[in-house]
C-alpha cells in the first residue's frame, strides 16, 4: 500500500468548509440563544464612578446590564501551575469585579438582549462616568525593567551571556551597531472572537474560539470557582487565530456570567474594533543589535538588547532575543530583555511571537555586517553556521540549514544579485535582492489520542487538539492511515472537544510533533489489541499462532512471513469475533532526547523587491523559501502554511502597524480598512521548497512542525532587498513610502 504520509492530499475538511457545513464556535444555536455586547472604557487609568444604564434598559428586548455594580464576585483563582500560554507574573483582568480601569477599551459592562441589534443599541446607550487618573501611554525605553523572576525562569531571562561580548565587540575589526523597531501589530483573523455559553443546571457548555479547549476549561473553572468536570468546551473549527486564541480572554468569562444571570444561552462576539483591546497583540519592541567580526566575517561578538511593552496588570514577555543565542557560531554573546509597563491591554503571542521580532533585527544586522565587510550576505551566514547549539551546548537533533541556503539560493538565482546597491532596474523600478536565515524552535508536549477500529473497516481517531487552519484534521488522518494501513477515506478524525483525550496547546508549531506521535502511539496500541484478538484461543483466526509471528500490515492482521491469503482485514476480524469495534487510547510525550539534543526548524528566505523611487512604493514580486521542517506529512498543506506565513511576512514588512494615539492610549486604526494587511495584489510568486529531512532524534514521527517558521525571516529579507535596490537601510517596520521618502 502506498504510504499516506508525504502525500499531497487535499484537506479532508475542505468540502465541509466550502459548503458552509463546518460549524465554527459562533454558529452553534442552542435553544433560546440571546446576545451580549460589551461596553468598553474610554479612559486609560482611573475608576468608574457611575454607570447609568436607564436608557439602555429601556431598549426593547434588553434583559440585563452587567457591570461591577451587580456582577457576582468571582474567585478568579490562578491555576497552581500557570498555563504555558499565560503570563507568569501579575494577574489576568478580572472583569466586572471592581471599578478600576487599566486601559482604554477595557470591558466595563455587558448588555444582554434578545437580538444582537438590541444589545448593540443598548450598549451604545450605557453612560459610564469616570474619575480618570494619569496613566502610562508613552513607550519609554528608559523606564523599562527586567522581567519578573517567574517570567525569567520561564525562558525569558533578563540577561544571558557567554564569553565577553562587549569586550570582544570593542576589539572587533569590523562592527555594526544599530536599533530596530517593530510596532504593535494585531492578529486580525477573519473570524472574530466569539463565545457561546450555555448552562444546564450547574453544568456549563462553552462553544468558543480557542486553540486549546482543555486549558479553556481549566481557566474558566478557576475563574468561576467550579470544577472542571462541570465544563465542556467545544471548538471544532477555528477561522484563523495566529495565537490570539491561545489564552482564555475575559469576555469568555463574561459570557459564562451573563448566561447564568439571564438563565439563557448567551452569545458574545467582539466587534472588529473590540478585537484591538479585548484580546492581545504583538507588543511594540525596540532592539539594539551590535555585531563584531574579523575581516573574514567570522563573528567575534553578538549583543542583542530588546525592550517590549507590556501591561501594568500582567506581565506578558517574549523570547525575542533567544534565537540570537544559538543562530550563529560565536564565542561571545550577550542578550538583554526588558519590559516597559504601560496602560495597555495585555499583549499575547502572535505568529512566531518574539522569534519573528528578534530574527527581523538579527537578520537585518547580519546584512549590515555583510555590507560593512563587503561580503556576500549568504557567504557571511555560511561562514558562521552553528554546527551545534552553542547556548545549550547540545548537538542539533537534525539541521539542514545549509541545504536550505543552497536550495533557496539556487531557485532564486542569488548569483544574479547586483553587488552594488541601486544598480539594477526593471520597468523604471529599482530592483533589489535580499535574503535572511530563519529558524523556529521545535518543541513537543505530552498528548493523548484514542483510536476506534470498526467492523465496517473504518477507524476514528480522537484528540482534544485544534485546527485553526494549518490542517490538523488532514495531517492526523494521514498519520493514522499510514500507521493502520488503511486508506485515508476510511479514517475519521475528531478534535476540539474537552470530552476527547487530552491534547496540548495548538500553538508554537507543536501540534504535529505532539498530537501526531500520540496518534501514532494509539494506532500501535490498537494494532496490538487487534493481534491479541486474532490470536485469542477459540475465536481468533490465528488462534495458537505465536505473537512474534503476527503483524499488522495494510489494514489487516497477517503472518509476519506474509503468506498470501491469510491476511484478515481489521473489519473482518472484528466481525468474526462478534465485535462492532475495538478501542484503544495512548499517550506520547517527549523523553530523554530533550536533554540530549536541541531541536529546531530551519530555513532560508530570499526576496526580490521593486521600488518606485519617486513615489516610495515597494512591491515584492517574488519570495523563495526553503525549509527544514523534518518529515513532511503533507507537502500541499505544508506549502499552504508556508505561503500563508510568507504573506504574513509581507504584511509585517510593508503594511502592518497599529496607529497609537498616546493622548488617548488608543489604537486609532482599529478596523480592516485602515489597519493594512496584504491583499492578493500585494502577493507575487511564492516559491516553497522542503529540503530532505527526517528528525527521529526529536520524535518517532520525524516531524518538526511548520507554521511559525514561515513568517520569520520574511521582513528582514525584504528590508535587505530594499537596501540592495536603493542603498537605503530601513530599520523601522513597516517599510512605508513615508519612511522611504523621509530621506
Amino acid at each position, binding site marked *: 500500500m502506498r504510504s499516506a504520509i508525504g502525500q499531497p492530499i487535499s484537506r479532508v475538511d475542505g468540502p465541509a468548509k466550502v459548503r458552509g457545513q463546518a460549524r465554527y464556535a459562533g454558529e452553534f444555536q442552542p435553544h433560546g440563544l440571546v446576545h451580549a455586547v460589551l461596553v468598553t472604557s474610554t479612559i486609560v487609568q482611573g475608576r468608574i464612578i457611575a454607570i447609568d444604564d436607564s436608557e439602555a434598559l429601556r431598549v426593547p428586548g434588553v434583559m440585563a446590564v452587567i457591570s461591577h455594580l451587580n456582577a457576582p464576585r468571582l474567585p478568579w483563582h490562578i491555576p497552581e501551575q500557570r498555563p504555558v500560554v499565560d503570563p507568569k507574573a501579575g494577574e489576568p483582568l478580572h472583569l466586572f469585579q471592581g471599578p478600576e480601569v487599566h486601559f482604554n477599551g477595557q470591558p466595563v459592562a455587558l448588555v444582554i438582549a434578545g437580538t444582537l441589534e438590541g444589545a448593540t*443599541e443598548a450598549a451604545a446607550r450605557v453612560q459610564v462616568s469616570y474619575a480618570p487618573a494619569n496613566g502610562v501611554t508613552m513607550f519609554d525605553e528608559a523606564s523599562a525593567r527586567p522581567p519578573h523572576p517567574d517570567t525569567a525562569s520561564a525562558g525569558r531571562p533578563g540577561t544571558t551571556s557567554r564569553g565577553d561580548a562587549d569586550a570582544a565587540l570593542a576589539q572587533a575589526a569590523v562592527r555594526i551597531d544599530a536599533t530596530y523597531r517593530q510596532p504593535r501589530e494585531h492578529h486580525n483573523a477573519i473570524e472574530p472572537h466569539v463565545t457561546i455559553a450555555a448552562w444546564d443546571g450547574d453544568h456549563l457548555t462553552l462553544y468558543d474560539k480557542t486553540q486549546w479547549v482543555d486549558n479553556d476549561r481549566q481557566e474558566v473553572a478557576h475563574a468561576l470557582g467550579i470544577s472542571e468536570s462541570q465544563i465542556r468546551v467545544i471548538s471544532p473549527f477555528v477561522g484563523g487565530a495566529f495565537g490570539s486564541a491561545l489564552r482564555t480572554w475575559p469576555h469568555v468569562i463574561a459570557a459564562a456570567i451573563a448566561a447564568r444571570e439571564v438563565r439563557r444561552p448567551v452569545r458574545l462576539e467582539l466587534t472588529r474594533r473590540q478585537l484591538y483591546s479585548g484580546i492581545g497583540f504583538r507588543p511594540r519592541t525596540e532592539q539594539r543589535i551590535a555585531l563584531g567580526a574579523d575581516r573574514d566575517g567570522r563573528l567575534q561578538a553578538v549583543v542583542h538588547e530588546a525592550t517590549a511593552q507590556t501591561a501594568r496588570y500582567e506581565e506578558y514577555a517574549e523570547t525575542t532575543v533567544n534565537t540570537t543565542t544559538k543562530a550563529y557560531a560565536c564565542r561571545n554573546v550577550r542578550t538583554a530583555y526588558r519590559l516597559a509597563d504601560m496602560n495597555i491591554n495585555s499583549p499575547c503571542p502572535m505568529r512566531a511571537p518574539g522569534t519573528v521580532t528578534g530574527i527581523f533585527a538579527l537578520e537585518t544586522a547580519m546584512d549590515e555586517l555583510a555590507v560593512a565587510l563587503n561580503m556576500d550576505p549568504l557567504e557571511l551566514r555560511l561562514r558562521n553556521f552553528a554546527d551545534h547549539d552553542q547556548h545549550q551546548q547540545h548537538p542539533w537533533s537534525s539541521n539542514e540549514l545549509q541545504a536550505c541556503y543552497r536550495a533557496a539560493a539556487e531557485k532564486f538565482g542569488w548569483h544574479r544579485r547586483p553587488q552594488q546597491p541601486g544598480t539594477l532596474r526593471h520597468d523604471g523600478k529599482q530592483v533589489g535582492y535580499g535574503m535572511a536565515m530563519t529558524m523556529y524552535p521545535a518543541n513537543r508536549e505530552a498528548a493523548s489520542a484514542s483510536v476506534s477500529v470498526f467492523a465496517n473497516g473504518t477507524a476514528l481517531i480522537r484528540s482534544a487538539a485544534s485546527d485553526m487552519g494549518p490542517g490538523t484534521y488532514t495531517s492526523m488522518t494521514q498519520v493514522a492511515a499510514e500507521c493502520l494501513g488503511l486508506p485515508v477515506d476510511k479514517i475519521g478524525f475528531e478534535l476540539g472537544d474537552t470530552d476527547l483525550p487530552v491534547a496540548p496547546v495548538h500553538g508554537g508549531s507543536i501540534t504535529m510533533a505532539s498530537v501526531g506521535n500520540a496518534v501514532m502511539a494509539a494506532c500501535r496500541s490498537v494494532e496490538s489489541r487487534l493481534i491479541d484478538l486474532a490470536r485469542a484461543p477459540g475465536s481468533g483466526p490465528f488462534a495458537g499462532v505465536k505473537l512474534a509471528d503476527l503483524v499488522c500490515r495494510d489494514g489487516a492482521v497477517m503472518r509476519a512471513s506474509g503468506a498470501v491469503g491469510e491476511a484478515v482485514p481489521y473489519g473482518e476480524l472484528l466481525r468474526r469475533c462478534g465485535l462492532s469495534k475495538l478501542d484503544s487510547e495512548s499517550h506520547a510525550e517527549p523523553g530523554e532526547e530533550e536533554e540530549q539534543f536541541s531541536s529546531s526548524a530551519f530555513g532560508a528566505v530570499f526576496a526580490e523587491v521593486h521600488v518606485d523611487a519617486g*513615489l516610495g*512604493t515597494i512591491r515584492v514580486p517574488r519570495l523563495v523559501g526553503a525549509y527544514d521542517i523534518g518529515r513532511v506529512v503533507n507537502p500541499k498543506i505544508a506549502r499552504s502554511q508556508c505561503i500563508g506565513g510568507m504573506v504574513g511576512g509581507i504584511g509585517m514588512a510593508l503594511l502592518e502597524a497599529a496607529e497609537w*494615539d498616546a*493622548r488617548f492610549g488608543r489604537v486609532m486604526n482599529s478596523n480592516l480598512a485602515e489597519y493594512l494587511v496584504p491583499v*492578493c495584489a500585494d502577493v507575487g510568486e511564492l516559491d516553497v521548497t522542503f529540503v530532505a529531512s527526517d528528525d527521529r532524534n526529536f520524535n518517532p514521527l520525524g516531524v518538526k512542525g511548520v507554521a511559525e517558521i514561515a513568517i520569520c525571516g520574511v521582513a528582514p529579507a525584504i528590508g535587505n532587498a530594499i537596501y540592495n535596490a536603493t542603498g537605503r537601510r530601513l530599520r523601522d517596520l513597516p517599510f512605508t513610502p513615508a519612511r522611504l521618502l523621509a530621506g
Partner: protein
Amino acid sequence: MRPFAYSRAPDVQAAIAHAGAGAEFIAGGTDMLQLLQEDLRSPATLIDINGLSLTGIGTDGDALQIGALTRLSEVAAHPDIRNRFPVVSEALEATASAQVRNMATVGGNLLQRTRCLYFRDATMPCNKRQPGSGCPAQDGCNELNAILGGSADCIAVHPSDLAVALVALDARLVIAGPAGERRIAIADLHRLPGDAPHIETVLDPGELITAVRLPMAMADRKSAYVKVRHRASFEWAIASCAVTLSLSGQTVQDSRIVAGGVATRPWRLPQVEAALAGQRLDAPTIRAAAETAAEGAAPRPGNAWKVPLQQRTVARAISTAAGVP
C-alpha cells in the same frame, strides 16, 4: 447601530419629498453601512434610492451623462468612458475592490465620508461628527491627513478617486431638490472645512445628485490618473493626481491638474496648470511645474512627508499623460 425607519423611494420626487430632517439616502451602501454600524450616523429614516431610474450612460447634448446610481464597475467598463474619458476608468479601477465597485454608485462615491481615523471612531472627538468637540487629528495620528485645504478645525482628506478625475474633466452635476433641478460644476460640490467641517458639500437638505455630465469638449484628451497607496489594491489614496491635457504637438494648449489624497477636497492646481501653459513638455518643464504643486501646503509634523510625495505624484501624472519618460 440604532434603529431606523426604512423606505423605498419610487421616484426622484418622492425621494426628495421624504428627505426631511433626520432622513438620509442610501444607495450602494458601501459607506453608509459602515457609518451606521460604527454608530457614526444615526438617521431616523433611511430612504433607499436604489429603485430610482438614475442609471446608465449615454450622450445627452454636449455631454456624456452618467446616471448617479450607475455602479462604479459599470462606469469603468463602459466603452465611451474607456475610449473617450479614460481618466475616469483609471480612477475607478484604482478605487476599492471589484466587489465594492459592483455595489458602490457614482453619486455615493462623491459623497462618501472621510477616512480620518478620528472621524471613524465614535468614541473620539471630531468636529465633523460633533461640531465643536475638537480635532484630535491636528496633533495625533495624522500621517495620512490633509496638507492642503485644512483648518484648525479639520484636516480630514476627501477620499474619492472619482471626484479628482471628474474635476480634471470639468464635469457637471445635475442636482434635484425641493426647489427644482440645478446644475453645478463638480469642483464646486465640496466645501473647505473652515470652521464648519460638518458641512461638507453645497447640497441643501433634500437635494440629490441625479447625474454626472462629462463635457464632450473634454473628450479624447491625453490623460492619466496616478494613485499612490501602501497596498497594491483596495486602499484609499495617500496621494493621487488626475491630469487631462490638450496638446498641440508636445505643446500644452490647456491642462487641468487635480490632486487627491492630500487635501480636504479634490484639489485643483491652477499654478501648475499656469506653469505648463504654452510650454513644450519635457522632463525639466514637468519637474519645475510640479515643484509648485504643494504651494500653500500647511503640513503637520506627522504628514510633512506628503509634500514631496505630492510633487512627485503630480510630476508622474503629467509625464504619464504626456508620454514623457
